[in-house]
Every structure is written in C-alpha cells, then in structure tokens.
C-alpha cells in the first residue's frame, strides 16, 4: 500500500526546475540512486527522506503521502466490509479511487464510518432487547397488563349473568391495569430516549483519530503550557509525587488520600484512582504504583491549572460532537500530563541517548511502559522529531482499546488486529518484551515491540486483574535507531513474519492462521470454514 513516493519526489523536483544530478548532490547520494528512488525501485525513508524533503522545500508528510495513505486504508476497509463481499473490486481499487476521484473516495470513507456507527448502535439495541433485564421487566409488565385487560374484557363481554359487584370488579381491574400500562409505556419511552442520548458510536473515536492524525500527534500549545507547568512544579521542589501533592494542596485545596479498599467514583466505576470535585479528594487505591500516582497527579494538576488550554484544543473542528470533545478532553489531558512528566527536549535527548530503550526510560522517569510508549509517539515536533512510532493497546480478548496511527502502517481502527502481531504474542510472556520484524503483503516492513502487563492487585479478593498489551511499531527504515534492532538482521527479509492488518483486510491467501474471510479480488471467497467437499453455495455468493 506504499504511496508512490518516487513519483512525488520527481514531480516536485521538476516543478522546482532542479536536475536529478543536482538534487542527488544536495542530498548526498548518487544520481543513479536517486533515479532508482524516483522510479520507485528503492524504498526511501528516515534521514534521507528528511534531506530530500528539505532540499525540495516540502513537508515530509507531503512527500510520503501520509494523508492519502490513511484515506486509502479507510477506503480499503470500506471495500472489505462483508456487505460488499460479492462486489468485484480489484486489489488496487482503493488506491486507484483515491488517486483519480479523491472526493468520491472521501465520501465512501465517510459513509462507511457512518455505516459502522449505525451498525454499532443497532447491535447495541439488539443486545438490549435480548439481554437487558430492565427492558425484559418492562416488557413482562406490558404482557401481564395486556393479559389482565384482555381476560377481564372477555369476562365482561362473554358472561351474560355477571352480578353488579363482579361487573364493577372487572371494570376496576381494566382501569387499574390500563393505568399501569400507561406508566410502563412511559418508562419504555424514557428508556429508549435516554439510550438515544448516550448511545455508543464509533464516530467520536474516529473524530479524535482525525484530530490526532491531522496534528501528527503533536500539539504545540499543549507542549508550551506543559513546559510552563513543569517549570512551576520544579521551582516548588524536585519533580515527583511529593511536590505535586504539595502544590495541589496549596494551589487547589486538593487532598491526596490512599487506602486499601475499593472505592467507586461518581459514576460507580471502581478504578484505581479518582478525583471527587466536591470533596476535593484525589483517591488512590493502595495498589496504584508510583508511576500511576505521579502521572495522575500531574494530569490533575494540568486539568486544574491549564484547563483553558485543553479546552481551546478541544474546540478543534475535527471534534464535532460533544462525545468526541469529551473523549478529546480526556486524551489531551493525558497528553499534557505526558508532556509534563517527560519534558520534550530532555526526554527526546534521553531517548536518543539510550536508543529508545523503554525500560531504561521508565527507570529515569518513574514511569510505566505504557506512559513511556505513549510519550514516544508524540515526539513529532517539526525539525526536532524522534523516531516515528505507532501505538496500540489490546485487552486479552484481542480488542484494540487505544491506538495512535503510524502513517503507512495498515492498522485497523477498531476491533482486532492480525492475530500474528507481537501485541498478542506478548500475552504469552507477561512483563517480558517481545519483538518482531513483520512484512505486509505490499512488502512494507515494520519492527514491532510489545509487552503485556497487569495492574497490581490490592488484595486476594482483587485477583482478577486482567493483562493488557502495549505495542510500538516503527518502519524498519528507522529501526536501527533503536536498541530493539540489536541482533536482528533487517537485510534478510525472509526472516520477517508475514502479517496483514487484520484477516478481513488481508490479501494473503496462503496464511494458515487466517481466522476470517477476506475480500478477494473478483469477489472470490477464501477457503476458511468451507465444507471439505466444495459446494456451489459458497459464503457471500447468491447463486
């Protein structure tokens, strides 16, 4: 799915009227090598792509076609949707469409988002109808009420010799039951109205994705405010839990409390920490590790001291819905906390010095694997960027619960990824780092590093804590800047693990681990879960 970078380089070069030889000289490579790059016969990335972008006076994103990449991936996902399974799209349909009809491609991507969102809420409703105990109770009351009314009405109509007392008794029963039914009907309507207001959709997450992608996961205003807050904190004492606790108490009247029990937040959620704005108490369960306490105290400090900065960012046009703005506020609050705990320049310098060794960085910054990994993906300051990483987090059911896209890396936006990815292998060896060099069907190669960990439990009764797995991905072009390349032979692609984005989006027909049908060029279904003896009524085929 690589965009034709070579073509972009050559057309930009021609537009500027520079010869191939001149550009090659300026970029420090041979003219013949540049020729190979321009004709897409050599991959280009990392420092060389930066130099070329600099010489051609364009943004690196423009050369690598990141926005197009993302649109191609979205259109691919739309075309791979099971509802379109029997439609005949060629393998390059998405790329062709984006190249030739970008507006139509965007429309398809948006429609697909809207469709997924509608499907999610339809699933929610059908789940509710099937399993919701409240709804079941209301429906039971409706049927009981109707039964009583019908039975009494039949008695009034059919029994000719009812005495007056009996007649009154059954009329009263009908009156009572119909009143009851009215209340139930109101309850039902209220139930659905409430649902419609707060229903889960995929769109808010996508809106937030768009914002993060649009800003390349870098928010200068938040970085500036974070630098200022970091300054305030270190003027008051050494950066850490003690100073933060002191500042929160003196500046905002917040009391930090730790205890062993389970406490629910205002919404009834039993987290490891929560803040009660009424009592001004920031509570941590005794199991919350130092990294969690430091990070969450920083986040609280950021939200209290610089709420207007976060609010301004949340008003971005990408975040159209209130749900997206709420998600955005949460995500950007965490971003700011990360920027305070890991100040940009110092952290980038430290990361480069230890070659992005996450363990080493954890020790220096009293931070968790996930906190360090998350901050690494935000080191995208123009002119002062770190290695570009994508970020994924999965629960043990395989569902992706958090992600930051890496341009070019085909990453599903929801659901689960390819089961071969290191993010899942990491569950087999919790707390140990798993690394993997993968190759996608289009030949693009990435280094994946993942680690699974469980939150610390507070007591025996709390023993059910689940593991989550966090993964960073970087293009192999940048991998040698990291400690994780040590001992790996990137020159030999035969050692790569052949992977896809997710079964549904994967074109590898020969994968023995395929779990789900994929879109096949020409609408041919694959052989997953087919009968041993071929039949004509294959999945997705009408005749």
């Amino acid at each position, binding site marked *: 799915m690589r965009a034709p970078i070579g073509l972009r380089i050559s057309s930009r070069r021609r537009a500027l009227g520079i010869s191939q030889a001149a550009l090659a000289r300026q970029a420090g490579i041979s003219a013949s090598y540049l020729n190979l790059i321009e004709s897409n016969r050599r991959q280009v990335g990392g420092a060389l792509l930066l130099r070329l972008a600099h010489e051609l006076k364009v943004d690196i994103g423009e050369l690598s076609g990141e926005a197009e990449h993302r649109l191609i991936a979205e259109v691919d996902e739309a075309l791979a949707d099971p509802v379109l399974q029997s439609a005949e799209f060629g393998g390059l349909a998405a790329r062709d469409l984006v190249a030739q009809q970008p507006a139509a491609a965007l429309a398809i991507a948006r429609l697909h988002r809207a469709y997924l969102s509608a499907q999610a809420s339809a699933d929610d409703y059908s789940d509710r109808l099937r399993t919701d105990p409240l709804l079941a109770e209301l*429906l*039971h009351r409706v*049927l*009981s009420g*109707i*039964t*009583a009314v*019908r*039975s*009494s009405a*039949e*008695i009034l109509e*059919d*029994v000719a010799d009812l005495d007056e007392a*009996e007649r009154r*008794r*059954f009329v009263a*029963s009908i009156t*009572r*039951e119909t009143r009851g039914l009215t209340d139930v009907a109101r309850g039902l309507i209220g139930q659905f109205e409430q649902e419609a207001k707060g229903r889960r959709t995929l769109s808010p997450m996508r809106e937030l994705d768009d914002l993060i992608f649009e800003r390349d996961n870098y928010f200068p205003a938040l970085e500036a405010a974070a630098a200022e807050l970091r300054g305030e904190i270190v003027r008051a004492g050494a950066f850490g839990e003690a100073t933060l606790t002191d500042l929160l108490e003196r500046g905002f009247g917040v009391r930090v409390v730790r205890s062993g029990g389970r406490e629910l937040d205002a919404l009834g959620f039993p987290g490891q920490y929560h803040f009660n704005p009424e009592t001004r108490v920031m509570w941590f369960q005794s199991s919350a590790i130092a990294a969690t306490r430091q990070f969450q105290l920083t986040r609280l400090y950021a939200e209290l001291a610089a709420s207007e900065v976060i609010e301004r960012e949340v008003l971005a046009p990408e975040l159209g819905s209130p749900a997206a703005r709420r998600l955005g506020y949460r995500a950007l609050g965490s971003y700011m906390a990360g920027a305070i705990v890991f100040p940009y320049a110092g952290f980038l310098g430290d990361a480069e010095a230890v070659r992005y060794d996450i363990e080493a960085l954890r020790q220096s910054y009293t931070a968790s694997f996930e906190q360090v990994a998350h901050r690494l993906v935000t080191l995208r300051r123009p002119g002062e960027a770190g290695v570009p990483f994508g970020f994924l987090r999965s629960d043990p059911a395989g569902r992706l619960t958090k992600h930051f896209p890496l341009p070019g890396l085909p990453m599903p936006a929801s659901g689960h990824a390819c089961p071969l990815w290191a993010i899942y292998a990491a569950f087999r060896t919790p707390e140990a780092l798993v690394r993997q060099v993968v190759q996608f069907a289009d030949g693009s190669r990435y280094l994946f590093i993942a680690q699974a960990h469980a939150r610390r439990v507070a007591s025996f009764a709390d023993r059910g804590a689940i593991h989550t797995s966090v993964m960073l991905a970087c293009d192999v072009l940048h991998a040698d800047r990291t400690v994780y390349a040590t001992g790996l032979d990137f020159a030999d692609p035969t050692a790569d693990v052949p992977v896809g984005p997710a079964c549904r989006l994967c074109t590898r027909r020969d994968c023995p681990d395929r779990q789900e049908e994929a879109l096949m060029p020409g609408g041919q279904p694959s052989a997953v879960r087919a009968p041993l003896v071929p039949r004509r009524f294959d999945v997705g085929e009408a005749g």
Partner: protein
Amino acid sequence: MGVDVLIAEDEPSILDSLDFILRRAGFSIESVTDGDAALAAIRRQRPRLVVLDVMLPKRSGFEVLKQIRADAVTRDLPVMILTAKGQAQDRQIAEDLGASSFITKPYANAEVVGTVKRLLAETR
C-alpha cells in the same frame, strides 16, 4: 379433600380473572402467589391440575415444575405453564421439564378453560 385446580400466579388481576373463569367452568380452585407456596399447596391440597406462571417470586415456575416431576407422588400431575415470555427456548425448557401444556400471555379465556378441561379429561 383435594381441589380441582391450583393456580400459581403473582399478578393479582390475572389471578382474579383466572379464578373467576375456572370457577364458572365448574372447577374448585385454590390459589397461591409464589413458588414456595405452590409446592406447599400441592403437597397439602393434592390438586388434580396446576396452572403455573413461570415468573413467580421465591421459586420460578420451572423450578416448581421440576420438583413436581421429581416427586414420585406428584410425578403425573398435569401442569399447564403460563408465561409472558413466549420465546422458543422457554417452550423448550417447559417441554423438557415435562409440562403438559404451554400457554403464552396474553391468552384468550376460552383457551385456558379449554386446555384445563382437556387435560383433566385425559387424566380421568
């Protein structure tokens, strides 16, 4: 002296109309409003037939039915299940547990009376 029909139903209006239509059809009636009381009444009153609602307090109609079929004394007692949940799996559970008949609310009075008459005629 046993009664003809024991009705186990917790909705007062439904119980009232069931009691009325079955009495008018000529049966002697005893009624209870929860599952435990149903089992106690079956032991004490020896009814010839039970009209059993599924969603009863204390012990569900299905549990009561299971107990009836497990006890050698009541094993052959005809049981008519009444339910507001008409789903296939409820009908299946009722059949598996040995219900004699299964009626879904809202029902027609004639359906209930007709079924009770038929079941009692079969046991004679």
